[in-house]
Structures are given as structure tokens and as C-alpha cells.
């Protein structure tokens, strides 16, 4: 048998294979998916069926949740993640941490997305509490719980309690104890949120999460700058500025900061600084 026709035949077959695989993958993405039926097997059962490979099962559950969240960025519809998908996401992370409760990444992933995107702050805290119980050497998890209580649930007392808790763990940043004390006294929401976020950023290794938190910090810094400007304006003129441009006009600020999320900062009639992008950022 001559060699060249066989080689040519193999090349053609390989090309056809690549085309067919590409098309089939594309078509599979369009397959109808059952909404709301994404049941997650409880971690206790996975632990038994995974035999001695339960650590691996926990990694795989975590990666499924991570890849799912990543894939939603391709979507154009709003809301980007449906409510049953949030539940699936939470259940998957719960199962992953039921199998291996010492695994840090599912807690961080759950905290990053369930709070800011999913509006499931209590669920995020439940996950973090479990993590904090098992990883009793780790001061970051009580720090996150404290932040969630302070920022989302507006429970300063509880936030202060968790920060105290975090500050007592080995290697904790010395700033935590003073922040806890401050929280217990007065409400300086944005300033404290900036300090919180800076602490969280120093502990974040993942580049995507880092960018996510950096943007949030930039946003909060913008709000903080404007809040300070508004209070100086109020002290000077004994009234709330009608709009933020007044701050530049009266030379209180050199320029207005830009909202990294693409919105515009504004001040409401009570003197509270907000942004047009805030609604889509804040949990529903």
C-alpha cells in the first residue's frame, strides 16, 4: 500500500474530526437545560461514594463551582446568574466543604460571590462560620464574617465581635483589634470599609479576585473622598450641596473621582454619597 494516500486520508480525517468536535461542542451549549433542577448530592453521601478519594471529590466540587461562575461572565442576559443557580452554587460549595471542611478556597469563593453578587450574605456567613470553626489557625475567615456583618447586615456589634476573634488568632494584622474597637464605638462606615478592604486585599492571592477587590476598594475610596468633601461643604455652607460639581466649584475638591464600575457618583438630598452603578452592585 502506498504511503502518501494513507497519510492524506489521515490528515483529512483529523481535520473532519476537529470540525465535528467544534460543532458538537457548540451545539451542546445550546441544548435546553432544566431550570431549577440542579440538585446537589449532600456532602455526607459523596464522602461515602468517593471511597478514599474524598479530598479529590472536594477539589472537583470546588472547581465545578469556580468554572460555573467564570462561565457566567460570557452571558448577556440579566440577571447574569439565576436564583436557582445561586442556590446550586451555594449547595455545591457546601458539599465541597462538608467533604473537606479544611479547604480554604470554597469559603473564599463563596464569600466573594454570594455576598456581592448573590445577595446571600447569611448563606456566605454560614459557610465562613464552618470554615472558621475548622481552620482555627486562620484569622482571615472571621475577618470576612466581620466585614459581612458590618457592611451588608449593618450589625456593628457582631462585626466587632468577629474582628476581636480574628485579632486573637496567630499572625493577625494588628490593625484588626483597633478596627474592632472603633466599630464598637461609632459608625464611620466608608472609612472602616476601606480599612477592611485593604486588609482583605493584602491576603488575596488569586489575580481575578484581587482585581475584583481592587475595583471595590477604588469605588469605596471615591465614596470616601466625596463624603469628606460633602461634610466640609456642609460645615462651610450649613447645607447639603445640590450636586457634587459644587465641591469642585467651591475648591473643596480638585476633581471628582470616576466610578470604576462606569456609573456616576451623586449626592442625595440627605447628603449621602451614592453612585448610579450602586444598584447593580449591591445585593438585591
Amino acid at each position, binding site marked *: 500500500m502506498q504511503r502518501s494516500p494513507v497519510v492524506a486520508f489521515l490528515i483529512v480525517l483529523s481535520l473532519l474530526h476537529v470540525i465535528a468536535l467544534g460543532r458538537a461542542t457548540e451545539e451542546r451549549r445550546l441544548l435546553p437545560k432544566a431550570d431549577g433542577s440542579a440538585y446537589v448530592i449532600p456532602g455526607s453521601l459523596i464522602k461515602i461514594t468517593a*471511597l478514599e478519594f474524598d*479530598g479529590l471529590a472536594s477539589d472537583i466540587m470546588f472547581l465545578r463551582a469556580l468554572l460555573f461562575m467564570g462561565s457566567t461572565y460570557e452571558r448577556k442576559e440579566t440577571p447574569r446568574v439565576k436564583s436557582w443557580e445561586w442556590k446550586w452554587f451555594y449547595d455545591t460549595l457546601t458539599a465541597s466543604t462538608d467533604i473537606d471542611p*479544611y479547604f480554604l478556597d470554597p469559603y473564599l469563593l463563596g464569600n466573594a460571590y454570594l455576598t456581592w453578587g448573590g445577595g446571600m450574605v447569611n448563606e456566605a456567613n454560614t459557610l465562613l462560620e464552618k470554615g472558621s470553626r475548622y481552620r482555627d489557625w486562620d484569622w482571615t475567615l472571621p475577618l470576612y464574617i466581620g466585614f459581612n456583618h458590618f457592611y451588608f447586615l449593618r450589625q456593628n456589634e457582631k462585626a466587632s465581635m468577629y474582628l476581636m476573634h480574628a485579632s486573637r488568632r496567630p499572625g493577625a494584622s494588628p490593625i484588626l483589634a483597633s478596627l474592632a474597637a472603633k466599630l464598637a464605638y461609632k459608625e464611620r462606615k466608608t472609612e472602616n470599609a476601606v480599612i477592611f478592604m485593604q486588609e482583605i486585599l493584602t491576603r488575596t492571592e488569586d489575580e*481575578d479576585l484581587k482585581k475584583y477587590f481592587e475595583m471595590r476598594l477604588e469605588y469605596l475610596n471615591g465614596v470616601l473622598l466625596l463624603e469628606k468633601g460633602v461634610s466640609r461643604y456642609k460645615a462651610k455652607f450649613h447645607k447639603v450641596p445640590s450636586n457634587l460639581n459644587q465641591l469642585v466649584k467651591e475648591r473643596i475638591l480638585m476633581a471628582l473621582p470616576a466610578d470604576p464600575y462606569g456609573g456616576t457618583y451623586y449626592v442625595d438630598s440627605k447628603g449621602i454619597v451614592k453612585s448610579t452603578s450602586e444598584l447593580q452592585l449591591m445585593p438585591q
Partner: protein
Amino acid sequence: MSTLLPIALITYKEGIRNKAFFGVSLVALLLLCAGALISIMVPQEMGKAAVDMALSVISFSGLLVVFFVGINLMAKDLDRRTIYMVLSRPISRSQYIIGKFIGMLFLIVMTMLFVSLLAIILLFLLKMGYPDRFERFSWSLVLLAAFLSTLGLVLLSSLSILFASFTSASFVTSALTVVVYIIGQSLGDMKTLVETPQSFPVGISPFIVKLVQTVYYIFPNLSLFDIKMQAAHNLSPSFSYIVWTALYGLFYTCVAITLAALIFKKKEVP
């Protein structure tokens, strides 16, 4: 001893010569590389995922050797009737069983050493590349986990010899060994689960609870030999845990081999 060693060596050499041994090594290498790629995807605790993957591959390769190479070494003698050649020599049946077991023990230890070496090289390279993501990592625990895993596999292979001593088809031996492995791995979790019914979504009858508690003392509890999760998070088990687990493995293995020798003595070789 002088009669045991030749049988052990022949068994070991036969196992090494078997092409399946190289297949297992190749599978281990491929799985280790795939595991490394997957663990890189874990952003924070990459070291944990890498250790999970490495130790799982080590255990899995050992299992493949027990199931596909080890079982055949004894069952083949019975299947192909080559056992007559051995038994016609001045070797007692118990010596044959013990010799076979020692040969299998060499084979398992060699495989585990080889695959562990590959895994260690891979972990070392990953740790060099991403030192920040290996915060909680301990070489001694990784090695200890591989050692306990080896003990578990030795126990399992002793059971495969026990099954081969009373069955005449290698398929039955393999099937029984696989079933015992699955039961042995899930028995510990199953016992905890039925004893704490609130964690289980469906009600459990008291009969099942008693059954599981009884079965717990008959089948081997292989999950005791699994400290992969502790190794991945650098959570040292107590010294007494390691000692008791190793002793449990030793006692169970001795019981299985003694039973196998007793049964094989009475067996009518077809």
C-alpha cells in the same frame, strides 16, 4: 525461610515482568501530570489540591497493581494448573501461600516506592514554581500518608490471597476483592452516618444500624489507612493513631494469611 524466599522472588519477578506493571506506571505518570494541571487551577490552596492529587494517584496505582497484577499471580497458578509443578516439590501448601504473599508484598512496596518518587518529583517542581500557594505543606505527612496507604494495600492483597485460596476462578477472586475494598473504604463513614441519623436525609431502621455495627468488625476498615486529607492540610495525626492503625493492619493481614493457609491445606486442587 529457605523455601519461602524462592517462591516470593518468583512471584515478585513474575509481577515485574508482567506488562501490566508498566501500564500502571504509565497511567500513574499521566494521572500525575493531569493532577498537576488541575491543581494549578485552585487559586489559594494549590498545595492542598496537589497533595490530594499526588496521594490519590499513589493509592490508585497501588490498587491497580493489587487488582490487575497481584490477583493474577496466584490465580494464574490455579487457572493454568502450574500449581502442580510447585506442589510436587518439597514445599508445603502453607509455605506456598506465605511465599506468594511475600512476593506480592515486594511488588506492592516497589510500585508504591516508584510512584511515590514520581509524585515527590512533581510536588517538588510545583512547590518550586508556586511557593506562596504551598503555605501548609509537610513532606513528612505526605510520606506518612503514602506509607499508611501501602499498609492498607498489603492488607487488601492478603484478602485477595484468602479469596484465591477457596475460589478456583481468578474472576471471582477479583470481584470479591473489589467488593471488599469498596465496603472497607466506606464502612467507617457508613457507621458514623447510621449512628448519627440527623445527618442522613432518610430514616434508618434499628436493624440496619445493628447490621452495620456488626459488619464493621468483620470487614477491614480500610479508611483508617487514609490520611490524605490530614496530609493535604498539614494536620498531624497522633503517634498512637499511627501505631494502632499499623498494628490493626498487621493483625488483620496475619489473620487473613493464616486463614488462607488453613483453607488452602484442605482444598482439593482440581
